[in-house]
């Protein structure tokens, strides 16, 4: 990798952030974190990360959802790859809502706790593609 990519994590669970930050940094990514939707949006605007990891449910109801809708309205962020993570998405295929569903403009959903190998593979995939098409990403198929 010629230059390291930046990942922004937005999640109110500080322990989760610590664990994932460490995982990503060990794999050569630069990581910044925010603990609320508002903070996350502000940081996303200024930082222009290569990828955003977002928890849909934080302290306030649907905070993550609204933050993402807001972010997509900002031209510079409309194409940024977003992985949505949440503990309500159980590890069963039917719970993975397809991004084509349209109500949440994310590239991918992952259940919490995330499998480290899976997360790294998806982060690599989404940051290597120049302009990932949000609507055509496959839901939840890991690359082998």
């Amino acid at each position, binding site marked *: 990798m010629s230059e390291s990519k930046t990942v922004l994590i937005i999640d109110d*669970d500080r*322990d*989760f952030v*610590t*664990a*994932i930050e*460490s*995982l990503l940094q*060990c794999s050569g990514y630069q990581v910044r974190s925010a603990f609320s939707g508002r903070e996350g949006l502000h940081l996303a605007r200024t930082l222009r990360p290569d990828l955003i990891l977002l928890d849909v*449910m934080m302290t*306030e*109801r*649907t*905070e993550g959802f609204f933050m993402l809708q807001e972010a997509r309205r900002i031209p510079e962020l409309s194409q940024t790859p977003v992985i949505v993570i949440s*503990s*309500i998405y*159980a590890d*069963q*295929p*039917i*719970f993975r809502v397809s991004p084509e569903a349209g109500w949440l403009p994310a590239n991918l959903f992952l259940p*919490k*706790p*995330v*499998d*480290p*190998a899976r997360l790294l593979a998806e982060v690599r995939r989404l940051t290597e593609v120049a302009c990932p098409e949000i609507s055509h990403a496959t839901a939840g198929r890991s690359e082998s």
Partner: protein
Amino acid sequence: MIPSWTALSIPRVRNWGIWQPEVKQPVALLNAAQSGPSEEKLVVVIDDDEIMRLSCEQILGKVGYRVETFANGHDGIRRLKEIRPPLLVVDIKMPELDGFEVIRSVRQFDPDVAIVVITGYATIETAVDAMKAGAYDFLPKPFTPGELRMIIDRGLERWRLIKEAQRLRHEKEEVERRFITLVSHQLKSPLVAVKQYLDVMLYSLQGQLPEKAVEWVGRSQVRLGEMLTLIQDWLALSKIERGSWCDPAASTSLAPIVADIVQDQRQLPLAAALTIEVALAADLPPVCGDRVSLSMLVSNLVGNAIKYNRPGGSVSISSTHEDGWVKLVVRDTGIGIPQEYIPRLFQEFFRIKTEETQDIPGTGLGLVICKKIVTELGGSIEVSSQEGLGTTFLVHLPVAEMKKEAG
């Protein structure tokens, strides 16, 4: 169902924004909840006879009731919608709208008001018809003040009991809902954080950790995983029981669900040494049910077939249809189930504890969930097994009527 520790104070949870399917409440209950404490000693009287109206006002006014009187049904009904009193006295024979029509109208928007029918034409038939239309009691004219007061007091008592029962049911649902919210977020959150640390630790630091640490972290991951699965299963079970999970009115095709689940479970380490075959009839009609609960059903059955199998064994999933039913068969060549355990198989938390099964993970809720889903969707589930040879689960699901597929 709710464990006794919920008797301890449940913390006031702010709106966590947990996605909760709507629990449908009857309109009457919602209105009662919204309008606040209603005036209890309030009676509406509808009678075209002015003297009767004045008498009622006087008789009941003396014992603390507030009485509103109306000469015709239309005015009375309009007012009833506004004030929702506990009691209504209505005459049968009136020129514009008769008593029966008033009762039927009122029952459409207020199922709880105690309606007392008064009439000079007191026959058994009239009384029966009045009760059938929705009246609570019947008082033939002429009546004494004492008789009117007694019937009104009894009507009020009945209304109070109905309201109390509604309040208690509402409270029970509130407690259940908060319990589910509590379990789903408060309990899960810390578990997820702990497991995440362990997952990252093993992945990143494996080379630097002493062997014992690696082993014990691995065991901790397994136990935590069990807890998380248990919470998930318990939540699913609660939702199925509250009726907010399965949708028997939906119609769904089984083929894509089976395909998705098999593809997913094929990747599990336990499935590596097994052959999994799928043979669904090509013209399989859609069944009653929604994708989420049908997926849970199939996932549990296939998961069990894989877990309780043996190296080199096989799992076969097949489906046929006849006579308005779709038959789904999940068969495995695994360790089988001893006959004495079969009657208890679908009980909550029941798990077979033998030497062979002690390392097999599971919550004991999988089959309960299957059975409840199948029952909610109008079908049935049976099991047959031979120890040492294998087990077969047979599910019958009703074919959905011709309508748009939910997909």
